[in-house]
């Protein structure tokens, strides 16, 4: 039994290629059943996202044939000439295939290391394959282990810990100041696209209320309507400032529009704790001296980006730790798979030995003289199985060792020959 994997990702193929080879969700059941209809493929699974397509299968026809079969299926299904995929596909078998799948599920192979979407996508792919009935004993184990390894890596390493985009960093900062965002108000200064995006990520994170102000009032009202917030006059900015908890500034102004002295005065009316100022405009629109005001926290684009960079570095460091976990898990899992694989071999050895013992017993039955029914039953129920177990034990140990080293089939051939020499 071999596990094979063929796929392409953002690392090996351009977007156009990934688009051509993606499996739309509606086509998945058909694709899965066509995949396992092939003689070489016993079980199959397809992971298809915008960044990658992975075909995973178990096969009894050998790794090379399995891989070739998956690659052919990929081009045939998408009606591409087979050589069109050359150079874009990676092909893995057994331990390598398992390792690749573990890395994908753990988001170590993702564009943004540690992103959480991929795990959900892998789970979905697994569910699709279960529904299509293309998952059997082997792949279900592989998938279960992939998901548990991914969970282990998320909880034991920091690969998914810190945010790695400017707007998610802004949300994280807001959460580090205000535990609960639901009763907090965002004041958006400047209704440009960047500002709207950042405000939206704060609203998505649960922020309760949005107030918009802009030099041209129409645009402010437009955004306020869109997010069911309120719009205020640009001149009235300092009047509404005390009611805001998060001030998001993103205007096209060439100079500072929020000044420390006025802000300090306005915040006197605010009878609550801290205020978060986020300045995502370039050039900056909030005077940096604002950071000196008590309970005011100011972050500009450079601050946010340096946090992003530090977090990415952090994730990369954590990824090394995750790789070590993956190595260990793969080794462990491959051994486990192989020892499962020897089940039929053990049965076969015992069967062969039992045949020999039983036939010898029958052949020599007369020499044993008269036996009571109980004695005869005891020989069949106790003595023969005991003999078989005793004789087969060293052989099974051999098979198990051979399986651990990866060559159980050769060992089985040897054993068969040995036992059959009667």
């Amino acid at each position: 039994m071999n596990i094979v994997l063929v796929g392409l990702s953002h690392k090996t193929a351009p977007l156009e290629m990934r688009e051509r080879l993606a499996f739309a969700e509606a086509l998945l059941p058909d694709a899965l059943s066509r995949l396992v209809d092939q003689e070489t493929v016993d079980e199959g699974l397809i992971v298809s996202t915008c960044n990658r397509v992975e075909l995973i299968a178990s096969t009894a026809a050998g790794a090379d044939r399995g891989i070739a079969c998956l690659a052919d299926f990929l081009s045939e299904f998408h009606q591409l000439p087979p050589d069109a995929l050359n150079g874009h596909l990676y092909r893995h078998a057994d331990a390598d295939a398992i390792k690749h799948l573990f890395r994908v599920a753990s988001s170590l192979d993702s564009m943004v290391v540690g992103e959480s979407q991929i795990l959900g996508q892998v789970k979905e792919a697994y569910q699709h394959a279960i529904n299509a009935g293309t998952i059997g004993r082997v792949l279900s184990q592989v998938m279960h282990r992939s998901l548990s390894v991914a969970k282990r890596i998320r909880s034991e390493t920091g690969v998914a810990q810190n945010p790695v985009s400017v707007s998610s960093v802004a949300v994280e900062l807001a959460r580090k100041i205000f535990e609960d965002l639901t009763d907090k108000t965002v004041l958006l200064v400047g209704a440009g696209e960047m500002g709207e995006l950042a405000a939206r990520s704060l609203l998505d994170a649960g922020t309760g209320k949005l107030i918009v102000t802009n030099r041209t009032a129409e645009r402010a009202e437009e955004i306020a309507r869109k997010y069911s917030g309120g719009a205020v006059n640009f001149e009235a900015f300092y009047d509404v400032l005390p009611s805001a908890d998060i001030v998001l500034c993103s205007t096209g102004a060439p100079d500072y529009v929020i000044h420390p002295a006025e802000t300090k005065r306005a915040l006197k009316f605010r009878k609550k704790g801290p205020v978060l100022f986020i300045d995502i405009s370039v050039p900056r629109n909030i005077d940096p001296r604002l950071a000196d005001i008590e309970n005011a926290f100011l972050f500009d684009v450079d601050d946010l980006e340096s946090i992003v960079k530090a977090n990415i570095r952090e994730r990369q460091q954590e990824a090394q730790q995750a790789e070590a976990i993956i190595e260990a898990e793969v080794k462990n899992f491959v051994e486990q798979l192989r020892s499962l694989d020897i089940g039929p071999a053990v049965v076969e050895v015992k069967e062969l030995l039992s045949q020999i013992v039983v036939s010898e017993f029958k052949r020599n039955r007369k020499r044993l003289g008269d036996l009571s029914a109980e004695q005869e039953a005891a020989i069949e129920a106790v003595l023969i199985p005991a003999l078989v177990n005793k004789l087969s034990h060293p052989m099974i140990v051999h098979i198990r060792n051979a399986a651990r080293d990866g060559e159980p089939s050769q060992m089985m051939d040897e054993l068969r020959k040995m036992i059959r020499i009667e």
Partner: protein
Amino acid sequence: MEILWIIILTGYAVCVAQSIFALTTKRPVMRKPALIALAIALGGHTAWLFLRGLRTGRCPLVGVQEMSAFLSWGLVLLTLIAYRWYHANALQAFIFPIVLVLAVIAGISPGPSQPAPVFSNSLQSVLLPAHIGLLLLAYASFFVAFGAGVMYIIQERELKHKRFGTVFYKLPSLDTCDAISSRAMAIGFVLMTLGIVGGVWYSYSRYHIYWQPGPIEIFSVVTWLVYLIIIQSRINAGWGGRAAALASIVSFVIVVCSLVGVRYLGHGF
């Protein structure tokens, strides 16, 4: 030292190590062993207080040993309550070291040295321990407020200086620190008020005077007033943020300084 104290101290020592380790390293470490250690230590601690009470036939609130034991026990309890309400693990790193210190004092102190007070009626035998116990729990609450205040100031500095180390990610949000601090302070204030009322009542019942102006009495009233002012400004003036956090720290420092002062100044407690 009794064997029970060795067990208790070992348990708390594990908790101290784990809580500090957890605050300064990225991953959550040894949560389970620490939890088991805490359960054993707290169980032993509770059992000791209980047994001491049984043996002496009074509340275990007499003398340095019993007071330290009770104070540290109350601190652990309050920390657990704070965890239940706010899920702020980091707080433990600020409180458990003091718990350990107090437990060590209790562990190495000799047994009951002071004779148990003799009461002339059963009301007095309830009022005095209630007075002492409530005040000790009030100080424990003020200490929790202090710890949360320290967390606030650290977190505030990290945010102001844009330094986002491990501690930054492990500390709770400013709002949570503030909430723990103000709630602990309010609880402490209520306990202290009740404790003082108990003390006045006891004094009247025993000596037929409400108030005997000694250093400890004056100090208690001053502390009470300081906390009253802080809580009042928090509620009415919407005072919050950094200033409130600093106030919870400063006021607790005042409490400790005066407690130490009173102890060396006069008749102790």
